[in-house]
């Protein structure tokens, strides 16, 4: 008998009586100021946060954070044409030092930002391979908890890959000492726009 049938037959023989599936309520955060909490949790996890009133200031913020000449790649259409920032191309992302991408949802309780391959120009590896990551997100898209985030996300439609990113890559595998910048991005800068 092929293993699939063996496994399914064994499960049918061994499984417990039907256990009801609970309806999980959408728990909301008790924090009154979601934006404040979002920033606080991100900073606690080693990220930098910068708030601006106008998205035209994005490149200024990026330039102050990365004053040296770095190879910057942007997946944001509205940054096209700005000097020093290359528009992402699926064949030429190697050697990216700073990747600039958009976050669709921000979660206040844990500082996680949702992004799918659509915002990555289908270059799934971009946020991991870049030395530094910049994520731009609108304040309007900050929710309190993961329950609210998944409610908005619903089921995947076109995207084959999506990820919550909650900070720079990190490890504590050597004697529990926290090291920021393990194998993915060494830093995360979150730019909050209105």
């Amino acid at each position, binding site marked *: 008998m092929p293993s699939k049938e063996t496994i399914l037959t064994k499960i049918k023989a061994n499984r417990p009586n039907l256990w009801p599936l609970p309806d999980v309520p959408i728990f909301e955060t008790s924090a009154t100021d979601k934006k404040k909490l979002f920033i606080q949790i991100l900073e606690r996890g080693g990220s930098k946060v910068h708030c601006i009133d106008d998205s035209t200031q994005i490149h200024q913020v990026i330039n102050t954070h990365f004053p040296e000449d770095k190879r910057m790649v942007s997946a944001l259409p509205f940054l096209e044409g700005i000097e020093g920032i290359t528009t992402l191309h699926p064949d030429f992302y190697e050697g990216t030092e700073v990747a600039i991408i958009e976050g669709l949802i921000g979660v206040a309780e844990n500082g996680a930002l949702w992004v799918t391959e659509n915002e990555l120009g289908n270059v799934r590896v971009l946020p991991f391979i870049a030395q530094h990551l910049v994520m731009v997100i609108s304040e309007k898209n900050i929710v309190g908890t993961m329950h609210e985030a998944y409610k908005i996300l619903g089921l995947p439609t076109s995207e084959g890959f999506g*990820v919550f990113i909650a900070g720079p890559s990190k490890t504590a595998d050597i004697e*529990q000492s926290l090291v920021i910048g393990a194998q993915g991005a060494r830093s995360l800068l979150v730019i909050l726009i209105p």
Partner: protein
Amino acid sequence: MMPHAQKAAIFNKDEARTDWHDASLWMVRKKRDFAVSEIPEWEFLREFASDIKMHTLSKLDDYLEAFEKAAIQNGAIVHWAADAKEHNDIVLSILNKHQAKKMVKSKSMLTEECHLNEFLELHNIEVIDSDLGERIIQMLNEPPSHIVLPAIHLKKEEIGELFHRELHTEKGATDPQYLTEAARHHLREKFHTAQVALTGVNFGIAETGEVVVCTNEGNADMGVHLTPVQIHSMGIEKLIPRRSDLAVFTRLLARSATGQPVTVFTSHHRNPKPAGEMHIILVDNGRTEQLGKPDFRSSLKCIRCGACMNTCPIYRRSGGHSYETTIPGPIGSILTPGVDLKKHGQLPFASTLCGSCTDVCPVKIDIHTQLYKWRQIVSEAGLPEGGNKTMMSIMGNGLASPSFFHRLGNIGRKLLRLFPGKERFLSFTVWTKDRDLPKAPVESFREWYAKQARDAQ
């Protein structure tokens, strides 16, 4: 196989190191407590998580079929493996199909359980464990000592020495930042040259066919997205019904594991990259057996957070290697006796039954109750041998008869007064090896009570 108590005794010879190990894990436990305190509905979440998992187990066949259907629709290739051998053969066949000789792997306890690395190396495949802790122990040729913190038993000096030998870091260098940086360069090269990447799976979603992988370092995603072929090895108990259930589990997992509010990356893989291939291997390897044991099936709810290890006084002071199982600690001690009672039957005794594991478990597995139940089964089977059993039968008889108990108490108090200390007394039981006996009271409670009653008249 050496019994756990004996291995623990060896571990305890270096007292300073034992204290250090104990303190490292206790620190993680304290971080967990803080992270938990931030969520007012924590106890509700545990209850929901437990119910969702129990529900899934009660319809596991249906959910597996739904998952397979959705995954195939997404463009993934789904395999079923009845045991470790079949799992390993499937991985090898995928590698052979692509004439691949190099595979990067991110942390997966399942592949440890299947001894995949050893198997592939026999077939001349180079396997690179890419999680920093896993890479360290792979270089040392050791198994992980913890399911979340695989190298928690090692000192930075030892890792520095290892990296000096293997990666040519400076001699004597022990700075974690510097050593991590060296590993980063070493591994980035591997990601670019491997043809296949394999990951474990934290959650499989029945309604969408997605596999979800929760990590901090970014190594799992580097491998999956840079290599043409991705493989996800998944125990069949990893399923959850709905995508929205992830809200419950992502809130519980990292807080319980390391005290982070969420892992840095929560990756949802649904379909292969353009021109890529995505395989999902569903593995049984004893899980359907465990499902058939009413007293122990709830152990299949486990989400491998490691909290029960971090809190366990025995684990903290005996180290993961003393269990000689892939999954050590309290959860390992209830998962493995069912696999081989003779070999692992002593593990349910490696516990104080304090119940701390049950208290911290995010999916509410009654771990200490199951440890106790395993003890019954082990004892009925005539295991374990040795002093403990003699003592237990004396105690058993003593506690069953009130008059005998009374006399035993009298004798005990007299002996303790005559021979205080522990060395000269009861040397035939291990219990007193590291414990001082109490000062004997002049009278028993029963005598005191009788006297009170007399005085009151």
